[in-house]
């Protein structure tokens, strides 16, 4: 049996679901960031799989994945800087306690 588009899409859906579970159920802000990274990777797998297994004529899907990776890396840099700042100001990175915008 050959591996086709469906196998890659199912794998990517499962990875996205695991990341979503991490985002929804974790208490630590860094763990939530890790979940977001897993979800971004699932999206990239989708881009590349569609580019590989559908009748297209250029690498647009892979180029979109390049831009998605760029945005993901910028996002994690900002996220870690924010977590560090919040920890410095409030001595906690529990997202359940961070319900007050006025420090």
């Amino acid at each position, binding site marked *: 049996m050959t591996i086709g588009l469906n196998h890659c899409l199912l794998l990517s859906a499962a990875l996205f679901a695991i990341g979503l579970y991490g985002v*929804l159920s*974790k208490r630590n802000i860094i763990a939530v960031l890790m979940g977001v990274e897993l979800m971004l990777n699932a999206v990239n797998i989708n881009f590349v799989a569609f580019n590989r297994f559908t009748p*297209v004529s250029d690498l647009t899907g892979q180029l979109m994945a390049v831009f998605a*990776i760029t945005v993901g890396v910028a996002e994690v840099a900002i996220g870690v800087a924010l977590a560090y700042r919040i920890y410095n100001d409030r001595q906690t*990175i529990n997202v359940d306690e961070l319900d007050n915008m006025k420090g």
Partner: protein
Amino acid sequence: MSEMLGTLVFYAVAFVILATALGVVTSKNLVHSALLMTACFIGVGVLFIWLSADFLGAMEFMLYSGGVAILVVMGVMLTKRQDGPPGNPFNHRKITALGLVILFVLVMSTVIVSTPVPSGSYVSADTVDALADMMLNKYILAFEIAATLLLAALVGAIILAKGDGEA
């Protein structure tokens, strides 16, 4: 024979990706989560190479399993509590989240299985040349915007981490 080998490689890589991703979510120690996340990114990079996207695979190795992993480990170390290893607890919405995620998987797999797959495939002989050509001709505006975004993110991260007036 080589087709069977390809199938085998796909299932092995898929197993590694899903097992390490589950480990990231369920591990009790945040440092173990970060290491498993690196392994997951390496698996995704291998999958990209398997999908004949070799440039993206190299990019995934360098940026995600290199850069992002180090950033996250730094974040874990900088925000650690004094007592014991950095924990990774669940919040009180664990069951609701699990239900939502199972619903998501059911809906997505139904959609994927019931949608007809377009036949055909595309393999580029040289992904680096093709990507560079597209990036600097047709998609030059998106390329410049991405460069500006990276600059803004870099400056913003420094300002956020050092604080107003200190930077």
